């Protein structure tokens, strides 16, 4: 039965809706790590065995998820352990945010009571409401069997993998995943990327140019196709072959559901490592066709593949289309594909993205308007996968700085990391990055995970007024909804999509944030997955649109 989205109610949080947001491009930008101060005590264990098993250098991600619908974001960390004996690892961890009702940002470890104390060799997390009960559910991807958790809505999750056994697949290495409704039936489907066919049995020993043992690149293993699961009223059925997703294989690491051809149906972009990226165009009949080469996202402008890892879709140039950023290997530079009428154009060099990112290996990534000027800036998480020459002899010679790049009104980017606080100067092996407003101050914070190191919560303490946000609590949490912010004075409408996917192996908050760029915000235009359109007055603070659908 066709499901219809509609607005149930509107709650405005905050006030001063008629005041213009101050222009803040010159504002002080600051991110500060508060993880230790607020009880987020998590250290990733990569299980580095000296045998250089490839999964050791690839994990792991995290999720920002409001599991109890109390209005603040809780934190889930994916843990590693031993590649040789995954079940012996320390296990994943889950922390409840006590901000509401406690009034203070503080986290409590509730892993066991929440039923999330699974032990495996973890890679990533994805969030969605797959059973349409208005509680955010969780998928954990592993080197080994994946685990699907249903949020029971009573403070605990239950492992329901057995009800969707195809998800489990113990003999694969899964990376990122995304919940998205590809057939518009109102039930969130699921795509899980599988990386390469590495196993302990076929493990290869690779070396640096100097002959030292090192982690391999994915080319020594075979790529494995992504797997697509159709949601049949809360149970997932593997439809990979039926949907055509096994027609192209790739070592996939980053995935985001986007509407690449603006036809209202969600397509899939997959960043592949050392191979052509995939752009699966939704044929509106349950099948997909791979069109990356035709639409310009397979390769960088020189026609060569890059080592694609993290991905972030966002409208950096305010033209109403989501552009695609793909993070690659050191000495390749990230690739920014600008969406145009006839596909995508690689604008990495012209925007200086290439030059700014050339020295780094990128994983987590997200678009966020740090200075609330209306232009989406970038947070990029970095960490090498093979030894960095200048760190030779160190215990983990893979450390790199993360970057914060300011969007210069769509004309290009500049590095503002040095002005963004001490935390941004650290060199670590960052993998996951999840984005969301953890302390409800109207600014997007960043949760990052470090391979073999401590996780950090980078609180956005930038000066200047907060922006606007819009949330869709309730059934489905609005995933896939497109929101436009109309402002006075005929400036372009700013468009964002509600999503939790993208980045690398991590899940972000589904709340959408806007900086109004000093303009008076007028209204939100909401494009629902069924094609209908509604409007809401826009106000500073958070607008809440509660959404349900008819069955």
């Amino acid at each position, binding site marked *: 039965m066709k499901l219809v989205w509609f607005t149930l109610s509107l709650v405005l949080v905050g006030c001063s809706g008629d005041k213009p947001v101050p222009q803040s491009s010159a504002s002080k930008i600051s991110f500060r790590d508060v993880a230790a101060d607020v009880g987020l005590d998590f250290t990733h264990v990569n299980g580095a065995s000296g045998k250089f098993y490839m999964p050791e250098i690839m994990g792991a991600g995290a999720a920002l998820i409001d599991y109890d619908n109390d209005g603040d974001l809780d934190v889930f960390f994916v843990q590693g352990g031993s590649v040789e004996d995954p079940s012996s690892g320390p296990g994943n961890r889950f922390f409840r945010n006590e901000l509401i009702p406690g009034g203070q940002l503080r986290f409590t470890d509730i892993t066991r009571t929440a039923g999330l104390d699974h032990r495996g060799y973890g890679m990533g997390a994805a969030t969605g409401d797959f059973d349409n009960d208005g509680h955010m559910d969780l998928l954990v991807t592993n080197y080994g069997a994946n685990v699907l958790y249903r949020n029971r809505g009573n403070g605990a999750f239950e492992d329901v993998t057995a009800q969707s056994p195809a998800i489990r697949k113990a003999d694969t290495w899964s990376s990122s995943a995304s919940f998205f409704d590809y057939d518009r039936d109102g039930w969130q489907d699921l795509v899980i990327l599988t990386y390469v066919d590495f196993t302990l049995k076929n493990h290869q020993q690779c070396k640096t*140019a100097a002959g030292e043992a090192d982690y391999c690149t994915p080319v020594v293993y*075979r790529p494995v196709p992504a797997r697509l699961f159709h949601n049949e009223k809360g149970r997932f059925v593997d439809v990979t072959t039926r949907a055509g997703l096994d*027609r*192209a*294989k790739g070592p996939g690491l980053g995935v985001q559901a986007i509407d690449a051809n603006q036809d209202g149906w969600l397509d899939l972009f997959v960043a592949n490592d050392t191979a052509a990226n995939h752009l699966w165009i939704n044929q509106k009949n349950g099948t997909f*066709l791979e069109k990356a*080469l*035709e639409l*310009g996202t397979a*390769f960088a*402008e*020189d*026609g*060569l593949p890059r080592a694609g890892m993290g991905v972030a879709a966002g409208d950096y140039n305010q033209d109403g289309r989501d552009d695609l950023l793909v993070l690659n290997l050191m*000495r390749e*530079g990230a690739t920014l594909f600008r969406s*145009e009428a*006839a*596909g995508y*154009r690689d604008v990495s*060099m*012209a*925007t*200086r993205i*290439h*030059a700014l990112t*050339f*020295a780094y290996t990128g994983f987590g990534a997200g678009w966020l308007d740090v200075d609330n000027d209306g232009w989406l800036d970038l947070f990029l998480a970095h960490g090498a996968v093979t030894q960095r*020459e*200048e760190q030779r002899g160190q215990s983990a010679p893979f450390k790199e700085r993360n970057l914060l790049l300011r969007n210069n009104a769509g004309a*290009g980017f500049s590095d503002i990391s040095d002005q963004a606080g001490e935390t941004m100067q650290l060199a670590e092996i960052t993998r996951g990055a999840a984005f969301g407003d953890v302390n409800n101050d109207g600014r997007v914070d960043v949760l990052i995970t470090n391979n073999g190191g401590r996780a950090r919560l980078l609180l956005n303490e930038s000066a200047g007024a907060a922006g606007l946000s819009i949330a869709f609590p309730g059934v489905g949490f609005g995933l896939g909804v497109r929101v436009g912010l109309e402002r006075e004075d005929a400036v372009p409408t700013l468009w964002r999509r509600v999503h939790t996917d993208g980045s690398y192996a991590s899940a972000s908050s589904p709340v959408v944030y806007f900086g109004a760029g000093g303009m008076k915000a007028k209204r939100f235009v909401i494009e629902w997955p069924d094609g209908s359109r509604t409007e809401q007055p826009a106000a500073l603070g958070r607008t809440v649109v509660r959404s349900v659908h008819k069955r």
Partner: protein
Amino acid sequence: MENAAQGASAAPNDAAKVIELGLVLEAHDQHAAASVAFRRAAALDPSNPDTPYLLGVALAADGKYAEAIEPLRRALASAPRTAAIRLKLADTLLAGGDADATRREYRALVDADAKLAAAHYGLGRASTGHDAAASFARALELFPRYGAAQFALATEYRRAGRTVEAAQLLQNYQRDKMVTPPVEDAAMEKVYARNVSSTGLIRRGQILEREGDLAGALAVHQQVVKNSPKLDQAWVNLISLYARSGQPLQAEEAFRRAVELAPNRADAYYNFGVFCVNAERWADARKMFEKAVALDPGNPETLYNLGVVVERTGALARARALFQRALALKPHYRQAHFHLGRIYANERNYEQAAAEFQQAIEPIDAESPACLYALGAVQARLGRTQTARQSLERARAEAMRFGQSQLAASIERDLGVLGR
């Protein structure tokens, strides 16, 4: 590398020794360390014209584009007619995002040497729309197998709605993606010459092969197996290099050595299978492709090649299954569609045959007349005289356009029969 480091340590004020260290470091992708050596060498001997260029190259390779500009400009000032230096300067400006300066340098290159394909390609990269397309097209006129230019021109054609031409270019690009035109660069030759590691030499050999220098590629690979006789990749490459150089016995020996070292390398069996096909050793070719498919069942080219060999034996059901598997992996595999169409036609399944031939027609090129001819033939057998005539007439026109006079005559004859 150790020798070079010791040499420079023993004589830190000897510019030649320091340059030697820089060359060796650069040859092994140690760009940051190489740039330190080149900087010191430039200070010790400012008269050496190569040093600022090499410093610029090392800095650019390390992503320090802004820093690389000054030494590259200095190098250019001392050798203004050296295309390689201006090309590196232009490429570095492009990578650093300085569009105006990039265009100026590529334009200067084109003005100085209108036959430099790399300069036209660069000018295209720094331009947009029609200007970009014109530059890429010129680069391809000068060097038709220029993979990056094929890709770039296809991208521009796609944006302009010229989808058929774009598809054709992308098809060529799949074949030529690593092919680049050679640019004379004496300073960088010194760098390449210092990477005498086997993997470095293989990389050099692959570059020479892409540039069309088969003899050079062969010589480098022979050097590799002399130094490292257990490097299976070199033997695998040699199968193809010997075969294409008309040295069948050596190709056989290379295959023997490759599988002895790495019995599960599908590409060894694949390369030798192609050699056997060219030598019309069909039974051997089949064995090779069977083995390659067993080792790597997800390779559409291997499945297609095996299909072609099996089709020759008359085992059409097996061949059909192989082509179908190739198409499942690579849906736009034109040759597989054509062969599958032929099998359906042979089985008198004309509807299916027509559908397959239809998918093999585009992009329009020298292969299209045969596909159109086959399509017309099965349409005639389906009793669709009008559409058959249209297909055959189009086949005839395309055959004439591509200079295929014999094929055009055959089509003419069949058109006559259709008329009766």
